[in-house]
């Protein structure tokens, strides 16, 4: 285990920022802490780096208890949201700073800086000052600076937050490539679920200082345990339901219960339907999955590659995503009656978590 957090806790006065968080991260893993702003995710990163003192709990990096060590002795690389490059030093000097502090001989230092500049594809820009670099270049220098001492752990606090959408996508790929190449255990903090999906080996969802659940992007998207996860990671139609025998009852309709949901029998549950897993047809016989019922189209909206259809099924409003081609073929318009079916659905125990944000 590379990073091990045991029941860590941080509060300011009465305000709890990190609430009893435990987490294990494997060597070489890229772990994303995902949560809204103010959820405590950045504080967790600062606690690991030793920049904020821990109230309770333990932090171990590669089996070494660092809970009480100052940041200088933790051996973590940290990339700040605004990069915080040393303004009066060139890119090279920024990258070399940590090596200089560690009294690495000049020749070795120079070789390492060259290597890192190659890694971030900025070989020709080593002599430039931060103010002469673009946001994306500054970010890459900040990553190189954090990696210079070959840290055991790399921590990134919203590293793409201040960048244009276009550059962001490219830098994400760069970062993932660098991380994979070096195999450095990494925690990245973000509030952007798309970023989390693209980068993460595993995601930890955090809200109100609590780590709600941990899983692969696919697991969390398709089978979240928390309502917050379901709604924070993409769009979700959630309806109160209940499970009995081998069926799930959603109002008058009933559907076969998904496998592995026996433990939810008898307790209040919610059924989660992702907008893209709902199908629309003019006749119930055309549906491939289970029939949900007949509904009325209330709105159609262009949503890029897909079309967003809002429908009313009895007293429930659902969001559905379908291909524009299918929409044209069906020729649906607001007010039309259509049939809804669903191929994949998920049950989660009702847990109206009330956290910050």
């Amino acid at each position: 285990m590379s990073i091990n957090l045991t029941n860590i806790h941080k509060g300011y006065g009465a305000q709890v920022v990190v609430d009893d968080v435990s987490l294990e991260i494997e060597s070489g893993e890229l772990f994303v802490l995902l949560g809204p702003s103010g959820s405590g995710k950045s504080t967790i990163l600062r606690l690991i780096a030793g920049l904020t003192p821990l109230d309770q709990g333990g932090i171990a990096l590669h089996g070494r208890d660092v809970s009480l060590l100052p940041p200088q002795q933790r051996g973590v690389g940290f990339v700040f949201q605004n990069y915080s490059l040393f303004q009066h030093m060139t890119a090279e000097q920024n990258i070399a700073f940590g090596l200089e502090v560690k009294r690495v001989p000049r020749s070795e230092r120079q070789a390492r800086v060259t290597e890192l500049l190659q890694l971030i594809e900025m070989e020709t820009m080593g002599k430039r000052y931060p103010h002469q670099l673009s946001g994306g270049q500054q970010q890459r220098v900040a990553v190189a600076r954090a990696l210079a001492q070959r840290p055991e752990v790399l921590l990134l606090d919203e590293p793409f937050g201040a960048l244009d959408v276009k550059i962001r996508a490219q830098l994400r790929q760069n970062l993932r490539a660098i991380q994979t190449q070096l195999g450095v255990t990494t925690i990245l903090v973000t509030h952007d679920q798309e970023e989390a999906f693209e980068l993460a080996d595993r995601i930890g969802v955090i809200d109100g200082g609590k780590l709600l659940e941990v899983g692969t992007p696919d697991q969390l998207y398709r089978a979240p345990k928390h309502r917050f996860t379901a709604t924070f990671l993409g769009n979700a139609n959630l309806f109160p339901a209940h499970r009995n025998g081998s069926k799930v009852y959603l109002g008058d309709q009933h559907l076969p219960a998904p496998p592995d949901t026996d433990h939810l029998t008898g307790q209040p549950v919610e059924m989660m339907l992702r907008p893209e897993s709902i199908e629309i047809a003019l006749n119930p016989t055309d549906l491939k999955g289970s029939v949900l019922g007949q509904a009325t189209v209330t709105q159609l909206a262009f949503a890029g590659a897909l079309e967003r259809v809002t429908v009313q099924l009895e007293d429930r409003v659902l969001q559905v995503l379908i291909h524009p081609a299918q929409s044209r073929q069906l020729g649906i318009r607001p007010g039309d009656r259509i049939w809804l079916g669903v191929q994949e659905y998920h049950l989660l125990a009702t847990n109206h978590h009330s956290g910050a944000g």
Partner: protein
Amino acid sequence: MMQTRTLTTLNTSRTPQMIFWGVRWSALIYLSVLIALPLIVISVEGLRGGIWSFWDSITRPAALSAIFISVWTAALMTVINMIMGTLTAYVLVQYRFPGKRWLDSLIDLPFAIPTLVTGVMLILLYGPQTPIGGWIEDQFGMRIVFSSPGIVLALLFLGYPFVIRAVQPVLASLDIHQQEAAYTLGASSWLTFRRIVFPAILPAMITGGLLSFARALGEFGSIVIVSGNIPMRSQTAAVYIYGQVESGNLAAASSVSLVLMAIALLTTLLVDYLARRRTAHA
């Protein structure tokens, strides 16, 4: 659309342009009358008797010593204030303590207090008849008032706000994450201060220091009271000039004035240069 806008601009542009020219010329004329004209007059007066007479005036032992005393006391004050002022600014920015706001406004007081009053305060505090002044003279055999330490003390009081007010905003706007980044890279607090914080505030320290130096060079009011004005020992250039004017020797007065002005001008230019370089870097 484009054409209408151009037309409107043409129609209304005459009046603002005239106002613009008016403002520009009145500012330039004001500047010339207020600053350039006296500068020219004193330069002409100082060099009226030719370069050799000017040279004679400023190389007279009393004049030379006065200029020297002015420069070294101001320089010593500048060095002390650069260190202590930065320290004060650091404390004011970094820490919270009761009475901080009160102290913060107290710092500007030397700007407002008449310099003569400063002199009187120092005499009352360190004069030979006072407990403190007497004690220092007994213990260290050193006179504060009516001697060069008194001059430095008066200048320290005057120059105190300059460095603080220059460094304070720079320290306050310093990105704390840069220091934290240095910590995670293994740098101690001291190393972080030396390599990260200090280079960031150094230009402001120098600017503040140079400004206080320029201000101190010509100080008269407090020094005339505190220094005792002993020629060759505790007479500064400003007081020397006053003496020469009093005894009707305007040529000598303007020659030494010219030297003081040249130093002040160089200092100001240096401050300007540093400020320019700093904005180019930011």
